[in-house]
């Protein structure tokens, strides 16, 4: 990628993949033993793409996400963001955590939470504008002055998403964000996420253990399996857009993909 350095930042962004993992291996040191969590992970995430990562518990999905987010260092291999090697949390990448309650600042209002990522870098008018836009995107305009602990789980998770969106990131990394929500909230959140992607062109890396969710949301699915976790297979999802909760899920192709992913994981999985 030598000549890429000569191009401007913007075209570099469009040209190079949002993320590239090359033989990434992550280990944890525990007292005197080393445990390999994930091994030789290699894949690409293209700009504007929605990549879902599925796998049974314990395969290191969260670890992979944290490594991509710059929170956990890789023991070997490299992670590239827009062609540049990752050293610590990268600028254009935001993580949305599963535990929304502890990821939000419970003592700040919703609006103040959404502003958290941008308040130190922008002037007041710009901040207000972005907070307003982000809250509109997730449908929480009326709750700007509430405190997170006054809201339901789904709404708190939306606050976290709004906080991420306010940064206008190139990539959003999401760690089973809807796992703790009830089925109906989950369905409407999934559609909201797809709407956001359509409107903003952000790339998404979305972890889930729900196979149907992975097929519904994804442009591509990466199956993580084994201990240490390895990429078992990557599926291209050729389902039509825009997706619809009722009709898309009934398409024969949907069921085929679901079956195939199920097989790839190799275990009875809901």
């Amino acid at each position, binding site marked *: 990628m030598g000549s890429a350095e000569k191009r401007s930042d913007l075209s570099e962004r469009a040209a190079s993949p949002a993320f590239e993992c090359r033989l990434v291996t992550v280990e944890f040191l525990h007292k005197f033993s080393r445990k390999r969590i994930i091994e030789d992970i290699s894949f690409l995430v293209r700009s504007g793409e929605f990549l879902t990562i599925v796998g049974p518990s314990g395969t290191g999905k969260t670890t992979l996400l944290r490594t991509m987010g710059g929170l956990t260092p890789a023991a070997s291999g490299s992670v590239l963001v827009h062609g540049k090697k990752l050293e610590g949390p990268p600028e254009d990448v935001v*993580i949305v*955590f599963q535990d929304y309650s*502890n*990821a939000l*600042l*419970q*003592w700040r209002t919703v609006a103040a939470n959404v502003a958290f990522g941008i308040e*130190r870098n922008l002037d007041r008018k710009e901040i207000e504008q972005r907070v307003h836009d982000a809250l509109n995107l997730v449908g929480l305009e009326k709750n700007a002055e509430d*405190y997170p*602990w006054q809201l339901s789980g789904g709404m708190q998770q939306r606050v976290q998403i709004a906080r991420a969106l306010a940064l206008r990131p190139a990539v959003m990394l999401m760690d089973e964000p809807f796992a703790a929500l009830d089925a109906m909230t989950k369905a409407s959140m999934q559609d909201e996420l797809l709407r956001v992607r359509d409107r903003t062109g952000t790339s998404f890396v979305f972890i889930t253990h729900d196979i149907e969710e992975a097929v519904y949301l994804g442009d591509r699915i990466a199956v993580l399996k084994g201990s240490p976790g390895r990429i078992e297979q990557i599926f291209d999802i050729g389902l039509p857009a825009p997706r619809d909760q009722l009709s898309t899920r009934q398409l024969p192709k949907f069921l085929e993909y679901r079956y195939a992913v199920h097989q790839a994981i190799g275990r009875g999985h809901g």
Partner: protein
Amino acid sequence: MRSTGPWQQYFKLSVAALPSARGLLPLVVLLGVWQLLQTDKSPYFPPPSDWWNGLMLLSKSGRLYPALSATTMTLLLGLVLAIAVGTGVGLFVGVFPRLRRAIGPLLEFLRAIPPPAIVPVAILFLGYDERMKLTVVVLAAIWPILLNTSSAAERVHPLLLDVARSFRLSAVDRMRLIILPSVVPAILLGIRVALPVAIVVTLLVEILTSIEGIGALMIGAQRNFQSPQVYGLLVLIGLFGLLVNSIFAVFEAILLRRWPPKTQSENF
């Protein structure tokens, strides 16, 4: 604009949280019975009406208000210093858990020594003056605040620290925006525990050394066998303690209104 502003709401909440006024019956009955039984003015159990007269005497002789203000000032200043230093050191120790583990047993050992026992040490080292009094109050009040703060700073949820890292916060910003607000409930709990300790130590110093204050007034009255004044001052101290606690409770409720109800201080 709303017609009931936040202050009216706080007032209503505070009043609603008070226990039923009927609960004062035992005290009223006790005082009433005492008043009726002691018509022959026993020197050991003077009737409550005499207590009031005794206090009025003290007030007229110009000794009550200076004493009251001396005690209050020591308490106020001592608490402010204890909060400032206790919070600062507590945050520092909490953020470096290895430091806490290293000086932990030392802190435990020092904590086992009851603050009143420190008073004679302070008298020996610093003499019989206001500076000694203030120092010992600060030393006594600082412990609960320091320990609570450091414990809470250590226990800031790791996910919040991940968020701080993920958003690339500087160490200063992380302390200012995440750690400090997180430990506010714990600091308030520490202050709540420190209040009675500070009051006890202040009074103890005054009684032991007769340095200006309500305690000095009390022990002076006892030595002169002015029993109505002793009882009157006791009631005064009780009301004083009640007032201090109430003011703090209101202050705490206002400060904690942004926090989920669960984090509000629990008894014991």
